[in-house]
């Protein structure tokens, strides 16, 4: 990327673009990156984060996290704090895949325990957690009941026996957003999503069996609280969202906002930044519909967790309880959430848009489950399928980004280019030679997700730590992967 001359170095990992960079910017933009990561960011990032800085009601800064890259409307890795009274809500600041997020589960198994069963585990997971274009789940949920799912989220699943009560404790918002109103969603959204509960989807969505090597546990005390206690412990991490349901909710409201904007005298430099005042009828309707999509995604990941427990239990011949398959946390990285902050001495309610950025609450935050009140919030970061993933924790100095951090390693190469450079079948063999057994619904999709198409995950994570927006707890190495 051509770094703009007006960019100001705040520290080794924080860079500021002043409001003079582009007419209409209401606040400066801040990018979190090392000099190397900054150079590697594409030009779209600067253009998009400075566009976000133009949105009415934005408070303090428009941010981009170290894994940031070109998206639509917002950059991926974009964070925008909006004043809840004066500001707007923008579906493009959340993404079409509302509540795309991560879930992490531990086991009491070691790599040696799992190795002889690895292929069988991955093969059965590939069968029981459908992935790829047009995949449908094994739950038959009538449309009327699907409306309950989107209002109740993961709670609906646990009521149906598809999870444990403690899973809810360890899900952001206890797996159910208050204010979800199925009266605000379209019939098309219901039809697109009702048979997709318990499915991964495709693109960068995956389910991975991973190992925590002893040399990759950075904070033993916090790791212990998260349940990572055994050398070479096996964990399961997965990444997916609200599937066709959420995509349709975002599509419906993006169009409604585009039509409504003239009424509110709003104009934006990119139609993907279409927005409405948060307190307007359109803004409130979208917020209620978005909560439904958040809940669908919590339900989706809850059912997938249930399938993972079933598969491990079936293959290893012990109950999920005996296998210690406890959830660490479930956290979203595509949302807008109401949070309270003190800004210039005044307590304000802000609508924090995070698109490809993870909430990272510090120790003591009221919204954290009791188990993590002392440690801070687990932050689950999915790397590329060839490299590795992390669990981080929120820190007090994270307030500088309104407690937001990275969400993944971040792409550096377009999907189209990656497909030209990499070959899915070869990649599969190379990964198997490295000890990673992969099942994929698509060889082309696999090529697009090659490790070389992504930034260096270790550098991204180190940047979040150096900048003081989150801290490393453990790194995980992949051994088995189900890819959409």
């Amino acid at each position, binding site marked *: 990327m051509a770094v703009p001359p007006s960019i100001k170095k705040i520290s080794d990992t924080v860079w500021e673009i002043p409001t003079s960079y582009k007419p209409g910017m209401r606040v400066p933009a801040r990018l979190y990156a090392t000099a190397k990561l900054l150079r590697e960011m*594409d030009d*779209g990032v600067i253009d998009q984060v400075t566009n976000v800085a133009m949105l009415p009601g934005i408070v303090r800064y428009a941010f981009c996290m170290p894994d940031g*890259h*070109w*998206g*639509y*409307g917002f950059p*991926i890795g974009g964070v925008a704090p909006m004043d809840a009274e004066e500001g707007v809500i923008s579906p493009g600041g959340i*993404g*079409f*895949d509302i509540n795309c997020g991560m879930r992490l589960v531990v086991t009491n198994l070691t790599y040696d325990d799992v190795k002889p069963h690895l292929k069988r585990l991955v093969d059965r997971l590939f069968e029981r957690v459908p992935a*790829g*274009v*047009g995949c*449908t789940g094994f739950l038959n949920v009538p449309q009327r009941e699907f409306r309950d799912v989107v209002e109740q989220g993961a709670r609906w699943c646990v009521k149906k026996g598809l999870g444990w009560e403690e899973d809810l404790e360890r899900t952001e918002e206890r797996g159910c957003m208050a204010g979800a109103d199925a009266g605000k969603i379209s019939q*098309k959204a219901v*039809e*697109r*999503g009702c048979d*997709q509960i318990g499915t991964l*989807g*495709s*693109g*960068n969505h995956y389910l991975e069996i991973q190992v925590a090597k002893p040399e990759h546990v950075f904070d033993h005390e916090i790791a212990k609280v998260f349940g990572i206690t055994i050398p070479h412990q096996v964990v399961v991490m997965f990444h997916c969202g609200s*599937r*066709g349901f959420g*995509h*349709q909710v*975002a*599509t419906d409201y*993006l169009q409604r906002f*585009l039509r409504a904007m003239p009424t509110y005298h709003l104009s934006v430099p*990119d*139609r*993907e930044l*279409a927005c409405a005042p948060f307190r307007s009828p359109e803004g409130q309707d979208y917020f209620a519909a978005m909560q439904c999509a958040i809940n669908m995604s919590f339900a989706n990941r809850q059912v997938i967790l249930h399938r993972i427990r079933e598969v491990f239990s079936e293959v290893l011949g012990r109950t999920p309880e005996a296998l210690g398959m406890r959830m660490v946390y479930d956290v979203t990285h595509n949302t807008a959430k109401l949070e309270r902050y003190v800004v210039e001495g005044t307590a304000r309610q802000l609508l924090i848009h995070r698109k490809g950025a993870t909430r990272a609450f510090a120790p003591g935050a009221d919204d954290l489950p009791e188990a993590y009140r002392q440690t801070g919030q687990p932050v689950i970061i999915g790397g590329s399928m060839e490299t590795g993933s992390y669990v981080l924790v929120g820190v007090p100095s994270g307030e500088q980004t309104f407690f937001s951090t990275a969400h993944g390693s971040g*792409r*550096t*190469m*377009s*999907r*189209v*280019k990656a497909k*030209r450079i990499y070959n899915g079948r070869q990649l599969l063999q190379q990964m198997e030679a490295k000890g990673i057994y992969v099942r994929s*619904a*698509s*060889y*082309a*999709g696999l090529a*697009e997700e090659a490790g070389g198409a992504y930034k260096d995950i270790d550098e991204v994570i180190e940047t979040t730590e150096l900048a003081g927006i989150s801290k490393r707890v453990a790194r995980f190495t992949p051994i088995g992967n189900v890819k*959409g």
Partner: protein
Amino acid sequence: MPYEFLEEVAIADVAFRATGQSLEELLTSAADATMNAMVDDLGTIDRTTTKSIHVEDEAEDLLLVNFLQELIYYKDAERLLLRPDRLRVERHGRCLVLDAVVSGEPVNPKRHALKVDVKAVTFHRLRVEHTPRGWEAMVVLDV
């Protein structure tokens, strides 16, 4: 091929440029590009199921978005991969009215070499233009 996927326009998404001598041809090209983002060989889609699509809008680009969104809807709601058979656009006052007959079949991973799921048509850099050479569009799909 009246469409091409673009390497340097979108990083995490899929961008394509489509062309056509008429608006109808352009819409047909864009529909095939959208389907080709999901299925490697469009020739493997058997035309066994037929659907009618009717969308309206005042602007060509919004008409295109609405049409492609219908195809994405059927991909999820009925698992159908669809391609245009007949497509007509008429102007009724300020409104453009598109009527299409599309056909295809449900996703079959055994026969269709699948690529990546299309979530939505974005408005990012969306462009539909009538040029001296014909019609041209640029679309970024969220995948």
